């Protein structure tokens, strides 16, 4: 049984169909990168996995439990807010814009979830938060407020915040896209370390080299569908679909083009 199983996933915003039938399995320990042009549905797919985005059709199963709904007879009904929250607690998410809580210190950002959601004793939660801060190299920033930190530091705190919930799965939504170029490396280093520790992760990314380095599998999406998937070697160096080739050509060639 894969850790993540997605079947027949569709997502519509009004008349626009952003996801048009996605089937995907991700196994425990696997690192999967999703690439593709903007508007191809990558982020929407990621958000449906923890039900921050609600599928219009189809189902997502994580760790054996159906996300956001339960089957009653032959119908599916929405889960209560509480049950859904419990499911989300086991799925970490890192956002493009960090989304740290600006009114709380770095330490408080990290320990809030464990204390309020998992009911971990405050002293233990603090200990765990400090350990995570050391792990992302920010032990000296525990008392700082998010806006005193650089983007790269904020994103490392956001990763620590997600890890504090001890998730089985981590979702990265363009985690480095909002960063100044010189700050990208420090965030990728933290993600790479996490990958080497065996965390199951799904990354939506524009960092092609990084995707090639750490992924077990790369998925190319376009127009709400998975066009092609395979080991990074194959996708980056021997793609079989013309659309994949065109996308990679456009992305890897960073020179200015004549209009």
């Amino acid at each position, binding site marked *: 049984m894969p850790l993540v199983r997605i079947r027949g996933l569709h997502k519509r915003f009004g008349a626009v169909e952003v996801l048009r039938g996605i089937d995907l399995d991700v196994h425990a320990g696997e690192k999967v990168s999703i690439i593709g042009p903007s508007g191809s549905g990558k982020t929407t797919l990621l958000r449906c996995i*923890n039900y*921050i985005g609600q599928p219009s059709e189809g189902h997502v199963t994580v760790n054996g439990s159906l996300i956001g709904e339960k089957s009653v007879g032959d119908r599916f009904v929405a889960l209560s*807010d*509480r049950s*859904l*929250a*419990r499911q*989300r*607690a*086991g*799925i*970490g*998410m890192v*956002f493009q*814009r960090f*989304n*740290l*809580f*600006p*009114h*709380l*210190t770095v330490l408080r950002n990290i320990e*809030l*979830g464990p204390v*309020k*959601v*998992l009911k971990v004793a405050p002293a233990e939660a603090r200990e765990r938060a400090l350990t995570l801060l050391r792990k992302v190299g920010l032990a000296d920033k525990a008392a700082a*407020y*998010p*806006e005193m930190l650089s983007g790269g530091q904020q994103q490392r705190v*956001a990763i620590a*915040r*997600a890890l*504090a*919930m001890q998730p089985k799965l981590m979702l990265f939504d363009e985690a480095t896209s909002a960063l100044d170029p010189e700050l990208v490396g420090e965030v990728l280093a933290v993600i790479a370390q996490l990958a080497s520790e065996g965390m199951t992760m799904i990354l939506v990314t524009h960092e092609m080299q990084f995707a090639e380095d750490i992924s077990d599998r790369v998925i190319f999406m376009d127009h709400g569908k998975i066009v092609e998937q395979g080991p990074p070697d194959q996708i980056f160096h021997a793609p079989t679909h013309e659309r994949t080739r065109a996308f990679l050509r456009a992305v890897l060639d960073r020179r200015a083009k004549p209009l």
Partner: protein
Amino acid sequence: MTVIVTAGSFVVSIVLGIISAGCATSRSPVLRAISYAYVEVFRAVPILTQLFIIYFGLGSIGIKLNPIPAALVGFGLNGGANLTEVFRGGIGAIDHGQTEAALSIGMNPLMALRYIVLPQAFRIVLPSLTNFAIGLLKDTSLASAVAAPELSFDANTLVERTFQSPEIYILLALFYLAMSLPLSALATSLERRSARGHRA
């Protein structure tokens, strides 16, 4: 009495305002409709009319409230309706990414509101809250109309007894000013405190 009526109805207003704003921003259409109806009714009817209905109207069908509880209910319900819009604006001003981040670490929508959204919204609505509190302080003079023995009621009684109207009314104005100014000062210091983590 003015202080008790003001403080009491301020607390009632905030509680009602937060609950009603929570309903107004919830996913449930029923809750949204209740909040909408509540706000429209209590905002549209003048506070004096509401006080009369609560004090005399309810009295005529056998629900006798003393003047002070009647004033608390009246000002509380009215204030709650006004603050609903204030809180709703404050909640709306918080980036939705904040709620998403809270949900992603396993909070339910109510926890996200309580721990993440409201504390940030509070900072935004603080100036409006101060304004509301000072307005309330003055509006409680209307409670004299239902014979609640607050400041204006006492002043009127005193005028009737002594016929020194200019002096007494100026004194009354000074009393209100003396109560408003500490409120403004308190608000300023609260705003400064809640600015932690935000460059102004």
